[in-house]
């Protein structure tokens, strides 16, 4: 399948000699929903900056849908839409003007841009705010405005740098739905986020960057399969005063009526319930703990840090 993005030996050293990227290689397939994860300062934003022509690379190659960034910058830029981490629109301009101006930079005539802007702003629940100055929008609306702006020229590759940071859960979910539909319609999406459950539920493939290097790049399924232990959250019928010391399971108590139980993947759920019944622990309901990716992420980054310091 054609690559939407191919990065080869990408390096970036800033003027203060800080090496933000130490030669990363990355491939994102066309149509993918790809997670790019890393701690703060890992190099994600630098990589995105280079892809989007906001940061000059020191070395390496970036190829977008077969176009080399160095040799064919205009063609590359036509294919990319970026939702940056920071609000970077002119807050004194009306919402509709921000979108229409962005369309203009891509050479889209006003009448065409107006139609597309109306469609996007309606989709993202911003149509009623179209004539208001951007500074009057709430945080969630500003995020959605940046998504609308990034999509005005129908990019084939959409890059979202922490798009749901500081957004309440209701808006976050509606944004997830919107992005999923967009991806299903064929847009390749690269997502960086600190909400790892967001990456886990939406992305098919994942790369983890740590200290300017890609420490993992694989499918989400493959990565999650490496977890040896699954954690369940159980709501109890009766409050538990203390965890039985002799219990064979690893149990953490959240509150008197809620516990988290770790279950080795080789064990069945029947074993879990039999063991709990043995200690007279009655379960009313249960669910998976949704931070599986977080556990792996912490583990991978920790291992890499230990390796590099030893």
């Amino acid at each position, binding site marked *: 399948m054609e690559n939407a993005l191919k990065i080869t030996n990408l390096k970036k050293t*800033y003027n203060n000699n800080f090496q933000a990227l130490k030669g990363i290689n990355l491939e994102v397939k066309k149509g993918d929903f790809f997670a790019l994860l890393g701690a703060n300062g890992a190099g994600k934003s630098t990589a995105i*900056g280079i892809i*989007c*022509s*906001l*940061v*000059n690379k020191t070395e390496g190659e970036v190829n977008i849908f077969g176009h080399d960034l160095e040799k064919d*910058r*205009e*063609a590359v*830029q*036509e294919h*990319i839409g*970026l939702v*940056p981490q*920071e*609000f*970077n*629109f*002119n*807050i004194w301009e009306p919402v509709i*003007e921000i979108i*229409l*101006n*962005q*369309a*203009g*930079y*891509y*050479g*889209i*005539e006003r009448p065409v841009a107006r139609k597309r802007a109306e469609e996007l702003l309606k989709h993202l629940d911003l149509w009623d705010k179209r004539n208001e100055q951007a500074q009057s929008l709430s945080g969630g609306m500003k995020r959605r405005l940046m998504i609308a*702006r990034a999509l005005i*020229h129908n990019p084939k590759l959409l890059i979202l740098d922490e798009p749901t940071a500081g957004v309440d859960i209701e808006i976050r979910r509606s944004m997830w739905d919107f992005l999923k539909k967009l991806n299903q319609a064929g847009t390749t999406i690269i997502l960086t986020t600190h909400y790892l459950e967001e990456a886990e539920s939406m992305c098919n493939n994942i790369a983890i960057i740590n200290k300017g290097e890609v420490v993992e790049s694989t499918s989400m399924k493959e990565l999650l399969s490496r977890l040896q232990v699954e954690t369940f959250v159980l709501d109890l019928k009766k409050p538990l005063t203390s965890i039985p010391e002799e219990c064979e399971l690893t149990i953490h108590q959240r509150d008197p009526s809620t516990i988290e139980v770790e279950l080795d993947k080789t064990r069945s759920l029947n074993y879990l319930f039999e063991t709990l019944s043995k200690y007279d622990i009655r379960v009313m309901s249960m669910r998976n703990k949704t931070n599986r990716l977080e556990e792996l992420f912490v583990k991978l980054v920790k291992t890499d840090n230990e390796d590099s310091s030893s």
Partner: protein
Amino acid sequence: MKAAQKLTAFKTILTKEVMRFLRIWVQTLVPPAITMTLYFVIFGNLIGSQIGDMDGFKYIEYIIPGLIMMSVITNSYSNVVSTFFTAKMFGHIQEMLISPVPNHIILMGYIGGGMARGLMVGLIVTLVSLFFSSLTIQHPIITIAIVVLTSMLFSIAGLINAIYAKSFDDITIIPTFVLTPLTYLGGVFYSINMLSDFWQNVSLANPVLYMVNGFRYGILGVSDISPVASFSLLAVFVIALYGYAYYLLKKGVGIRS
């Protein structure tokens, strides 16, 4: 990008820039009109009547071209330096940097915006001057060409200042410590023939002198400098600064890490 798309991108930047200064007309268009009215009243009417004629013209008639030019220079420069620096500081310059709009179009869009404001203010000051003196333009084409080129030159200069600026202080240093002295000493209020030989020669190193005198020649038909020299200097400066501004944009100086 195809030519039609480039034109759309240029129109977008230009319209955005023009709408920006029109939206805040109280800050951008009214103050120069008031300042220049005061110049006309004080230097033209009150003091000027004591000075007598200069190069065969009443003093107020003599300073009108210089004052128009001064307002064009200041406003062209300040428009671009402030709008480009703000775009850089608040990050909305990135909207253009991530798009395929070529650097020439970005440059021309911003320069066009600066010229629009400079020339609009120049027109307002010209209209104000008509309350104080009649104005017959001797060489209309030269007048228009000189004012357009000057406005273009200082728009480019403002953009270069904005590219290098790292704080709001940096965008006021050049206008305050370089532009204002050069303009005031550029023959706006006097003819350099009034100066000693030494100061005449020093004045010839001031590029603003050539612009003011070129414009004065266009309107009044008198000048301390040959119009050819004015045009040549303007053309050389415009080409050189445009080339330099393009180079800075292409390299991403001040706008790309």
